[in-house]
């Protein structure tokens, strides 16, 4: 080692040290990069950033026969017709079982079902503004304020909607153009029970709702579909009351964000149309897939690149012209063929164990026949919901994509899955060792959840996605 460093040697040493820092930062995140990217962010971005392994594609990775695809009625799902599907006696039996089990477990202080778990689950369901077909319609319009309505290119409008929704609490945002022969069929033909009102498209300037029908104008040709993050951590305490609180909390947030979005569009001078009841307007996983927010999966729900299945999706239609976003592919459809973790963990055996997705639905609750999916036996699923007393969610929490993306290994694995199917079986085996799940049991001890006072706000990391990629 020389006694004194020359300038050249000093620069070389700094270079090597810098290389070391850079190498170390490969996985840890580089603050210098983040700073330079923050400066670059002042440039308008047409779409939010995605991971490099998320590819835009022209067609969704699920096969759809649009010609034979028919609009579906929401009330035919098990949300609206469960009693009919399982019969009066069976239905009464399951409802009683749910009531009895919840009482028994609360009295017995079963972890996840104790009084504190039940109280919290019930509490976070509070504060939901009512869903309204055209939104609350309370904020001032540009006309009210005496200014012209907002006007911008479709790309600019998509961008401001995305920015607004992210700030309201949405995770990812996409846009679909409604076409009468295809995408418009994803708007329910009839809204949920008990009203079962038909939803029509008419050539009118502004839509409306009366006692017999809901009318969406033809000119409301753009769908805004967005996801809201659920807590991956909290869901791992499912199927208990504690685990299901993240679903309840996410729906509470969804109710608020949908209302705020309606009001934002109204404030810009446009109209919007959405669910008048819970899940009352459109088939949201399908629209989210078309908008490139994720891919359909064995869960018969979307899996997103950023949050896995840990999202809820919702859509509204608007007459504000928007630029559609493209579908994506990141290997989920192929991975699900090899994985089956959710189906094996499912306590009710409701999820498909077939390797390939099918054209045929499992029952009248599925809109089968014109798209290839891993259809679920919703009645079996609902029966188990009544047995465990909650909405279970173990299929979501056991999914290998249900991970917080802190560790770089997640991104390496997701990138590998997106690039090749060669390692799928190996990765599934490793996932089951690293994230062990047992049928019908929480993945973690619910009592431990209450001991941690440092959990993230709402159990979610809002830095994920977009800027943090």
């Amino acid at each position, binding site marked *: *080692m*020389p006694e004194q460093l020359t300038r050249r040697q000093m620069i*070389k*040493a700094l270079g*090597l*040290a*810098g*290389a*070391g*820092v*850079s*190498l*170390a*930062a*490969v*996985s*840890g995140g580089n603050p210098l990069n983040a700073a330079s990217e923050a400066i670059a962010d002042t440039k308008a971005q047409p779409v939010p950033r995605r991971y490099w392994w998320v590819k835009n594609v022209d067609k969704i990775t699920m096969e759809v026969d649009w010609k034979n695809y028919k609009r579906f009625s929401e009330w035919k799902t098990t949300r609206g017709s469960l009693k009919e599907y399982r019969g009066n006696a069976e239905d009464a039996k399951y409802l009683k079982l749910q009531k009895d089990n919840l009482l028994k477990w609360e009295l017995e202080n079963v972890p996840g079902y104790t009084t504190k778990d039940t109280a919290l689950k019930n509490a976070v369901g509070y504060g939901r503004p009512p869903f309204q077909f055209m939104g609350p319609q309370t904020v001032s319009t540009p006309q009210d304020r005496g200014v012209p309505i907002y006007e911008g290119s479709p790309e600019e409008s998509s961008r401001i909607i995305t920015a607004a929704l992210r700030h309201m609490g949405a995770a990812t945002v996409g846009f679909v153009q409604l076409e009468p022969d295809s995408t418009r069929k994803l708007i329910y033909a009839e809204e949920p029970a008990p009203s079962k009102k038909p939803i029509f498209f008419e050539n009118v300037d502004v839509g409306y709702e009366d006692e017999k029908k809901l009318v969406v104008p033809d000119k409301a040709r753009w769908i805004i579909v967005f996801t809201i993050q659920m807590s991956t*951590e909290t869901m791992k305490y499912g199927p208990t009351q504690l685990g299901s609180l993240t679903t309840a909390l996410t729906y509470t947030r969804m109710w608020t964000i949908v209302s705020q979005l309606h009001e934002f569009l109204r404030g810009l001078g446009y109209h919007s149309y959405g669910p008048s009841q819970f899940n009352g307007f459109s088939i949201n996983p399908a629209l989210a897939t078309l908008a490139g927010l994720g891919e359909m999966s064995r869960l018969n729900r979307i899996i997103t690149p950023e949050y896995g299945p840990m999202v809820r999706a919702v859509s509204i239609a608007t007459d504000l012209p928007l630029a559609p976003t493209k579908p994506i592919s990141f290997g989920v459809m192929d991975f699900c063929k090899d994985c089956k973790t959710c189906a094996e963990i499912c306590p009710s055996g409701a999820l498909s164990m077939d390797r390939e997705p099918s054209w045929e639905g499992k029952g009248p609750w599925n809109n089968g026949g014109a798209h290839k999916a891993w259809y679920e036996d919703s009645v079996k699923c609902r029966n188990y919901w009544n047995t465990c007393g909650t909405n279970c969610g173990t299929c979501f929490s056991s999914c290998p994509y249900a*991970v*917080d993306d*802190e*560790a*770089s*290994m997640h991104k390496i694995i997701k990138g590998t899955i997106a690039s090749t199917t060669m390692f799928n079986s190996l990765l599934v085996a*490793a996932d089951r*060792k*690293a*994230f*062990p799940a047992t049928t019908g049991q929480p993945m*973690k001890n619910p009592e431990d959840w209450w001991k*941690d006072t440092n959990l993230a706000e709402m159990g979610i990391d809002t830095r994920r996605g977009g800027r943090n990629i």
Partner: protein
Amino acid sequence: MLWLILGIIIGVAAFWVFNANKSGKITVKWYQWALGIIALVMLLLTVENYINFQKELEPVAANFMLVGLGVPALLAASLIWLIPVFKKGKANTGETKVSS
């Protein structure tokens, strides 16, 4: 801060190895460079993933990383020393045989 400290340590160590090799104090073969780089990358990945899996509140996955990535990293690192020792031992045995 951890990454800054690790980066400085690695940078200084690399600087020393590079110069010592150049001045003839030590001899680093091509496979030792390769093994060293592989071990270093695996070790950094192990540290990063262990810390972040703990942040994710996933201790089982964190330990899985220690075993699945950390042990192979240490094995790769140990080979940097073991291969020359093994080679030397083999050569000495061969010499003994010839001389006897």
